[in-house]
């Protein structure tokens, strides 16, 4: 899969228990592909000494600062490996209330809140 520039994406909300290049402030956020770069070994695999680390396309992704922090008119660019991203086109479709249809940064904020609260995927070990 190669995501084309302009593709709307959402970053993973997972919090892995190892080195990763998806910083906390970009977790579960809506962004847009700016550039599809070359493939690089996935740092998450390399950090764990995986014998054959996955090689994935690294994308430059643009985020609205206001979506990340609730304020700011600038955008933030980050280089992110493909497995940190899922395509967000059509997100909100199929929901009956009209509000969800017009997904944009303002709404993304509240979605994030909801996700963070309910994201109980993958039981993290309690340490």
């Amino acid at each position, binding site marked *: 899969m190669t995501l084309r520039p302009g593709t709307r994406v959402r970053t993973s909300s997972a*919090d892995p228990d*190892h*080195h990763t290049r998806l*910083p*906390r*402030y970009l977790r579960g956020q809506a962004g847009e592909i700016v550039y599809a770069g070359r493939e690089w070994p996935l*740092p998450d695999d*390399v*950090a*764990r*000494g995986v014998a054959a680390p996955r090689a994935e396309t690294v994308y430059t992704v643009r985020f609205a600062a206001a979506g*990340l*922090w609730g304020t700011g008119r600038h955008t933030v660019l980050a280089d992110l490996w493909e497995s940190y991203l899922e395509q967000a086109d059509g997100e909100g479709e199929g929901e009956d209330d009209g509000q969800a249809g017009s997904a944009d940064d303002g709404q993304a904020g509240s979605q994030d*809140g909801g996700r*963070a*609260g309910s*994201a109980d995927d993958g039981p*993290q*070990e*309690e*340490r």
Partner: protein
Amino acid sequence: MRRRPGWVSVIRVSRVHDVGGQTGFGPVPEIPGSQDSQPFHADWEARVYALAGVLGRRGLFSGDELRDTIESLPPERYLSASYYERWLEALEILAARKGVA
């Protein structure tokens, strides 16, 4: 563990190093020609840097393994240590883990 809506439990948030975008640290100082523009503040720091480079090139660990080890330091150690103190502590951990210490 019970969770209130909109709250996240501490075990679900990042390790201590992941402070990017966090407020309260003030602006990043940018002082050309100052002490902070020097790569090392003491000779031992340069030696730690060189040691990490040599051990890495010998295949003892990858750069991402070193990063992972630094990020895994206990929070109280991570926050009280200087940049190269973290490197040194991670090197000690990796050397012991790989059986070369």
